[in-house]
């Protein structure tokens, strides 16, 4: 399902809808280039999970944890280009930690990407316009 958003607030609103449908041990994998809206969308997911805190980019610290109706593990693999570095991070533990695992730069995961991951792709169309492609298996949309 392809959705075009015209501004950041629409991307957040879409994330919020998806966030509201998420349950324990769901993995959401975000694909797309720098500035394509992944962190903005993540802020929406957090709203859908009833997280009150600001969701900021985890690029520097790699994993941020938030408390909501279920925990959110917000992971960013931007800086980790080698699969071994990702394995060292122990990322797989987070897939089964009874929370939602939200992964930016999921293209870096390669074969580590879990089968149940909900894949969402982001593309810059114009300055503020984004194409968001929600692939199966995402239910309730």
């Amino acid at each position, binding site marked *: 399902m392809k959705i075009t958003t015209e501004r950041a607030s629409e991307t957040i609103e879409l994330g919020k809808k998806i966030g509201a449908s998420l349950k324990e041990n769901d993995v959401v994998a975000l694909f797309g280039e*720098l*500035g394509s809206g992944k962190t903005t969308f993540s802020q929406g997911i957090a709203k859908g999970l009833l997280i009150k805190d600001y969701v900021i*980019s985890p*690029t*520097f*610290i790699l994993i*941020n944890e938030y408390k909501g109706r279920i925990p959110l593990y917000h992971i960013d693999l931007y800086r980790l280009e080698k699969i071994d*570095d990702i394995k060292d991070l122990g990322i797989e533990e987070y897939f089964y930690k009874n929370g939602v695992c939200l992964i930016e730069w999921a293209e870096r995961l390669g074969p580590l990407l879990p089968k149940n991951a909900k894949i969402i792709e982001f593309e810059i169309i114009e*300055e503020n316009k984004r194409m968001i492609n929600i692939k199966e298996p995402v239910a309730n949309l």
Partner: protein
Amino acid sequence: MLILAIETSCDETSAAVVKDGVEVLSNPIATQTEFHQKYGGIVPEIAARKHVELISPIIQEALDKANITFKDIDAVAVTYGPGLIGSLIVGVCAAKAIAWTQKIPLIGVNHLEGHIYANLLISNFQFPISNLFPFLCLLVSGGHTMIVHVKGHGNYETLGRTRDDAAGEAFDKVARVLGLGYPGGPLIDKLAKEGNPNSIPFKHPMIEGEYAYDFSFSGIKTAVVNHVKSLQSTVNSVQKKNIAASFQKVVVETLVEKLIKAAKDKNVQTVSIAGGVSANSELREYAQKRADEEKLKAMIPPFEYCTDNAAMIGGAAYYKFKRKDFSPLSLKPLASLRL
């Protein structure tokens, strides 16, 4: 009173001996930048392993340079968050071992608090401590961007913070888009000196109203990506310089103008900068210039106390020691510790 301080929150291994919270007797720092450079940023597993290798020699070096031994220390201080968990654990374990074997108090220090106290170390000391408070601190680093109202020792109010990317992160990402390498801050700073800061009209991120002290640097990062894409061919060196200069100008102006606005709104007479990005030459110059224009005092720490270092942790720990704010030996490192 002598405090041995340890800092291992990210990719610098540092130990320091600080006397009475102001006088730095030693502050050796082992940077791991070369080990992380090829990854374009810090790799947590590598950082933790390097800390393990470096921690004992660095502590010994700090003692030797201060010309003292473990027996002369009154307390041991350590950063227990925020930071990379594997890195924090190394410093915290070392500090606990020293506290236990030497039977001296352990003082856990918040890394962000340490950055603020970099302003109080003697080599930068411009005002008597009694007249220092309150002041505002613009704390900018790779992982943080915030304006803190420092009302007294250990008494902080966060007025604003970033809603998406930290300023330092925006520098790193833009450096990567321009193919400059890592760490991005110093590279952009250098390049910007040769560029025209008015050549590309990047927009200042505007947040108004109740959250006027909050920051957002995701938009300008995206604007740089879009600008680079809009160029017909690959970016040449003149274009790189102009992009770096134009980007840096907008970031620096945004940071400093919010700090100045907060100072005026809160009627605070002193402003300061801290954190790794406060080593940026344009930020330092612009903060000083704007503070002078607004008749505010400006505290700008020397370079060696801007980036991560243990001396600032020892500085903050002294005032915790005076308040008898000690930590138990069960002190746990916390990756997402707040101020």
